[in-house]
C-alpha cells in the first residue's frame, strides 16, 4: 500500500521549510524513525523522521526547494502491508496521527506541536492527486481553475506562489481566497496613511501570537509574586566564579535558579505535570526538562535543558551558553526545543521587577525572574542594604491551587536565599 508522507507541522505556525539534504533515494528501504530529509525552517534545522517502514517510491523537491507544510515529501510503499493492516494502523490513531509537544517560544513561552504523520495519507478512492501531489518547483505554470486564474490576476497574486489544494495540486478559488491577506479595504478601511504603515507578520511572530492565545484560551492563569534577599547567593556566585576563573565559563544566576527549581519540582510534582482534560487525568512527568526563554534577533525561542535536575552548575552554564549560541545562529534543532516540562524566563536581565508571564501550554507553570536591585531591608531590627530578587510565577489554576504554589515558591526561594542548601 502506498503512503504519502506530508511535510509535518514542525513547530506550529511555521508553514514552510527548505530542503537542506536528502538522506534517502528513490527505491531505498527505510525503517520507521529513519531520517528522511534535513529541513530548515525559520527557527530550526531538523531531521524529519519517517513514520513508516517501507520503500521510498517517490521523493518531492530538491535541495534548496521550499516545501509547504502539508505538501508531500515522500511516498512510501509499505511492505507487506495489506490495506487491511493499514486500516488498523489508522484506527489506532484516528485522524490525529502521532503528536508530540514541543516547547519553542519565549518570554511567556510558546508551544508547538509536531505531527509525525500527516493525516489524509492514504490515497482517496477517487485516486485524486495520485500523480503529483507536490511539484510546485518542477512545474512552471501552476495548475489552476479558470476562475482561480481570473481572480489571481484581478488581485495581483502570482498564482505560481499559491499552494493548490484541488486534485493534483490544482489551485482553486478557495486557495486564492485563503492565500491573500484579508483585503485591507474590507476589514479596516485603507490603513496605509502617512502616519502608520503595515508590515506582514513574520513566521515567528505568527507562531508566538497563535501559541500565546492558545495558552490564554486553554488555561486558568494565576500569578504569584515574591521577593527574596539574595546576598548570600551573590556572594556564593562570585566566589565560585573566582574559583572557575580558568575554566572559560562564568556562572550567571540562572544555573542556581535552575537547580533550585528542579529540586522544588521534585517535591511538588504537580507543577511538572500536564492536564489531560480529554481523559480527565493528570500526567506526571518523571523527568525535569526546563525551557529557558531566550531573546534572539529573529524573535524569542525557548530551548530546553533536558534532565536539568541531574546537571551540575557548570554543566548547566555550559549548556545554557551552547543553546544561546545556537539560538543566535538559528541552529537549534527540534530536539533542542521539545519535551519541556516547565519554563523559566529571566525578563529582569533586560529590565522589570514583576511580570505575568504566559505559560507554555500545556505545561503547568512558568517561573519569571526580575531584576536584582539593592533595596533597604530590615535585618535584626535595623534597616540595612539588601539585594532583592523579585520573582513572578504564572500557574494553571485548573491543575494546582494557590497554597501548593506558595509552598513551591517558598521552597525555591529558600534555595536562592541560602544556596548552600543546594548541596544537601
Amino acid at each position, binding site marked *: 500500500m502506498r503512503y504519502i508522507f506530508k511535510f509535518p507541522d514542525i513547530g506550529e505556525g511555521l508553514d514552510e521549510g527548505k530542503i537542506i539534504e536528502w538522506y534517502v533515494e528513490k527505491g531505498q528501504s527505510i525503517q520507521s524513525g529513519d531520517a528522511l530529509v534535513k529541513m530548515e525552517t525559520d527557527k530550526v534545522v531538523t531531521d524529519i523522521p519517517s513514520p513508516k517502514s517501507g520503500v521510498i517510491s517517490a521523493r518531492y523537491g530538491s535541495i534548496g526547494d521550499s516545501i509547504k507544510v502539508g505538501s508531500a515529501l515522500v511516498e512510501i510503499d509499505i511492505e507487506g502491508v495489506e490495506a487491511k493492516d493499514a486500516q488498523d494502523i489508522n484506527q489506532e490513531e484516528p485522524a490525529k496521527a502521532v503528536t508530540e509537544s514541543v516547547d519553542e517560544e519565549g518570554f511567556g513561552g510558546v508551544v508547538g506541536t509536531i505531527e509525525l504523520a500527516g493525516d489524509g495519507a492514504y490515497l482517496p*478512492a477517487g485516486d485524486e492527486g495520485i500523480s503529483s501531489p507536490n511539484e510546485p518547483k518542477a512545474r512552471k505554470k501552476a495548475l489552476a481553475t479558470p476562475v482561480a486564474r*481570473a481572480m489571481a490576476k484581478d488581485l495581483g497574486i502570482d498564482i505560481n506562489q499559491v499552494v493548490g489544494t484541488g486534485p493534483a495540486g490544482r489551485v482553486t478559488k478557495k486557495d486564492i481566497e485563503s492565500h491573500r491577506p484579508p483585503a485591507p479595504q474590507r476589514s479596516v478601511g485603507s490603513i496605509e496613511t502617512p502616519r502608520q504603515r503595515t508590515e506582514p507578520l513574520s513566521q515567528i511572530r505568527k507562531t508566538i501570537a497563535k501559541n500565546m492565545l492558545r495558552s490564554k484560551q486553554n488555561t486558568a492563569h494565576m500569578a504569584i509574586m515574591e521577593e527574596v534577599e539574595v546576598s548570600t547567593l551573590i556572594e556564593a556566585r562570585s566566589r565560585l566564579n573566582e574559583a572557575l576563573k580558568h575554566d572559560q565559563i562564568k556562572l550567571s544566576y540562572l544555573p542556581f535558579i535552575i537547580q533550585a527549581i528542579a529540586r522544588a519540582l521534585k517535591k511538588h510534582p504537580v507543577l511538572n505535570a500536564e492536564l489531560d482534560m480529554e481523559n480527565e487525568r493528570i500526567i506526571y512527568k518523571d523527568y525535569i526538562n526546563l525551557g529557558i526563554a531566550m531573546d534572539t534577533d529573529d524573535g524569542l525561542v525557548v530551548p530546553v535543558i533536558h534532565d536539568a535536575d541531574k546537571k551540575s552548575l557548570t554543566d548547566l552554564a555550559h549548556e545554557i551558553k551552547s543553546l544561546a549560541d545556537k539560538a543566535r545562529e538559528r541552529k537549534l534543532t527540534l530536539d533542542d526545543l521539545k519535551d519541556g516540562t516547565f519554563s523559566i524566563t529571566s525578563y529582569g536581565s533586560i529590565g522589570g521587577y514583576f511580570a505575568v508571564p504566559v505559560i507554555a501550554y500545556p505545561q503547568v507553570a512558568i517561573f519569571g525572574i526580575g531584576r536584582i536591585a539593592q533595596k533597604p531591608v530590615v535585618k535584626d531590627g535595623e534597616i540595612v542594604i539588601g539585594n532583592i530578587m523579585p520573582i513572578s510565577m504564572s500557574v494553571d489554576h485548573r491543575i494546582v491551587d494557590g497554597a501548593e504554589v506558595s509552598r513551591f515558591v517558598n521552597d525555591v526561594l529558600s534555595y536562592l536565599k541560602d544556596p548552600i542548601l543546594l548541596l544537601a
Partner: protein
Amino acid sequence: MTYDLIIIGSGPAGYVGAIKAGQRGLKTLVIDKKYIGGMCLNWGCIPTKSILESAKTYQKVLHAADFGVTGIKAEEIAFDWQQAVTRTRKIVAKLSRGIEFLWKKNGVEFLRAEAKIISPTQVEADKRVFETKNILIATGSRPAPRDDFPDALSLEDLYSLPVLPEKPLLVGRGANLVELAQFFQMIGKAPIILADDLPLMPALDASLEDFMLKKMSKAKIPLIPVIDAQIKDKSVSYKDKDYPFDMVINAGFRSAVLPQMEPQLKLEDGFIATDRRHMSSTDGIYAAGDVNGKGYLAHVASAQALEVIDSIMGVDLPDEERRYPLNIYTDPELAQIGMTEAQIKAQGIDYQVKQYSMSANGKALTEGSSEGFIRIIHETKYNQVLGVQMVSANATDLISEAGILMELEGSTYELARTIHAHPTVSEIYMDAGGMDG
C-alpha cells in the same frame, strides 16, 4: 474469520462500495435479501429508463411519416407491454452479471439473505453470525405506505402486471411520478396525477418544473392537488369534475428501509443519521444511499459509498458536499446541476442567466426534438458558472459538460471559447456561453 466490511444491501451504494472495498484490499461480504443491484437496477433507474425508451420509440414510430418513413399503418402500431418488460429484464440481467463479475474479480463475497445487525461487529444472516470490523448499511428506501390508498401498487410491482391500466392514478410527488405519468401518456393511456404537494419536483429549478407542468397540461394529464381532491371508490373529484381511475400507483416520497439492528442507531426523520463520513451514531457502522436520507439518487448513493471506503481507509474527506446532476428522463429530458436560481438568489449573489433556446439548434431540429432550452447561471464578477438547467433530448447526458466545467470552477468564457462540433446539440453550451452581458 473476521471481515473488514459487511455491506447490507446491493444497490448502487452497496455494490459500488463493495467493488471499491475489494480493490482496496478489504475483506468484504455483501448481503442482500433480494436481487443484486437493489432498487436501482431491478425496478428503479434502469427499468424505468428502459420502458420510457420503449414509449419514446412508440411515439417516434407514430410520427415516422413526418421523417419520410411510410408504409406503417397507424392503426396497426401498438405498444407491447410484455415485450417492453422482456427487453428490460434482459438489460437488467446483463448488468447484474456485470456486477457479479466485478465482485468476483475483486474478491467480494455475496450472500442472499436478510441481514440483521446484532452488535457493532456482528451481522446475522442465514442463521449464521458474521464477525466484521465495519458495517455499511445500504438498505435503500421505498415509498412510505399510504393511509389514503393502503392497497396502492408499488413501483416494483408494475413490472409484474400482465396488462397496464388504462387510467392509472399516480399518487405522490417527485421525479419518479412525473416520468411514470409521461410514460403512460406516451403509450396512449390516460394517467391522472394526484399530487401530495407542489412543486411536484421540489429539488428542481422552477424553470424546469414550469416547463414540465405546461407540457403535461398540454398533454391533458390532470394534475390534482390531494388537499383539494375528494377521493371516492374508483374516482377522484376535483373542481366539480370526476376523474375515474382503474388502478392506484404509489409514487410518493420515500422512507428508509431499516434492517433489524442492535444497537439502535440514531434516526432523523426516520432515516439513519450520519455525519460527513456517513458514519452513524455508532462507531464503525456507516450508512450510505437512500437509507440516510441525504439524497434519493443512485449516483449520490454510489458517491457516498466510495466516501465510506475512503473513510475506512483513513482518508480525510473534503468539507464541502459534492455537486451532482439531477435528471428527469421525460421527453424531452430535464437536467440540472449546481444551484438553482432560487438558491443563488437566496445567497445574495449577483448573478445573470444566459438562456438559449433549442429551437435554433440545427441538430435538435433534424432530430425532431427542438423543444427546450439551456439556462446557464453565473455570478457577474468572474462569470463563474454556478448552475445549469436544461431541457432537451439527451439533456441527461449533455449536463455532464456543465458538471466538468463546474468541477473545474469554469466560467462562461471557457464555454464560449471551446469549439463544439457542428451540428450537435451540445453547441448550445457555446451559444449560451457566448451571449452578451
